[in-house]
């Protein structure tokens, strides 16, 4: 069960946030923006302090993929273009990379191909909402 989903653009701005279950705290729009900015920062920092790299960038660290907490798990999927899709689930929920990749595909279809969407701006598309809801319910 995916409780909520966030999309963060490449400069750390929140461009989409949706609650699906009502089981996590509702963030006000301001709080959600702070969440996005903070997550963006954590993601960037986490890739810089990896203790596991051998030599110079033998394996590059690609930033946060999961955050585990007592009651929740956050999954992060970063696209090659720097967009981040973040899903909030129950703890120990199995990997969601494929679902988030599908959400990315929906973004490519229903946001980027929509003439009324401007790049890097919040996504306001009924079709995107509907398709995403279907995806979340199916997963």
């Amino acid at each position, binding site marked *: 069960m995916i409780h909520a989903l966030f999309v963060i653009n490449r400069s750390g701005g929140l461009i989409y946030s949706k609650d699906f279950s009502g089981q996590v705290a509702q963030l006000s729009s301001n709080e959600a923006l702070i969440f996005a900015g903070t997550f963006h920062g954590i993601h960037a920092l986490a890739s810089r302090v990896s203790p596991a790299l051998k030599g110079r960038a033998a*394996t590059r660290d690609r930033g946060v993929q999961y*955050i*585990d907490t007592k009651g929740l798990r956050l999954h992060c999927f970063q696209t090659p273009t720097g967009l981040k899709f973040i899903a909030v689930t129950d703890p120990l929920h199995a990997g969601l990379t494929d679902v988030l990749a599908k959400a990315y595909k929906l973004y490519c279809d229903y946001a980027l191909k929509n003439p009324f969407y401007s790049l890097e701006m919040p996504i306001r598309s009924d079709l995107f909402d509907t398709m995403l809801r279907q995806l979340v319910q199916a997963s």
Partner: protein
Amino acid sequence: MVVIYNIYIFDRHCECVFYTEWNRHNSPLAAEAGAAHEPLRGNLVLTGDRDSRGSFDSQRPLVWPTKPGAQQVPRNVAMEEEAKLVYGIVFSTRNIISKLAGSTQPGNGGGFLSLATNTYRMHYYEAPTGVKFVLNTDVNTTSMQPVLEMIYRNIYVEYVVKNPLFHFDPKVSAPIENDYFRAVLNNYIQEISSSSTTT
């Protein structure tokens, strides 16, 4: 098999009061110390104050901050920087998690446990007094909470807090220079690393 990379201890003043590492290949400490001292055993590198301790210390990993008296080595900027970054990560993560979990308690109310990238996993434990333990392991090691709690309860409290020489001033942060603490912690971590049962 658990691979443990390093541990950071932060006090309530956001200062890194203790750091040590194992199995690490890109250490900012080694970059500093490596110039003066050649590595002794595998990837374990000697600390800067070897001379004052003799061969007794040769089996120990690097620690940071070093004793003020032993600071022939100049301040390690890379290490200081890294400690700040790590603190920034756990502090911000703890905060957004509290928001997301709807927790209004101070401290780790949201229950932040760990954070994983594709190369390592960062485990977080916050003691009721506000002392923060950050332990980095390999990605597949999921739960280190018992270990961190053990380190806090049975090593930190026992050997640091109960040490009569422990200089406790709530206003100033003091690096942990307790040799006994280091030795016990090192033994404990070695034990966990070699036991395959802990996951």
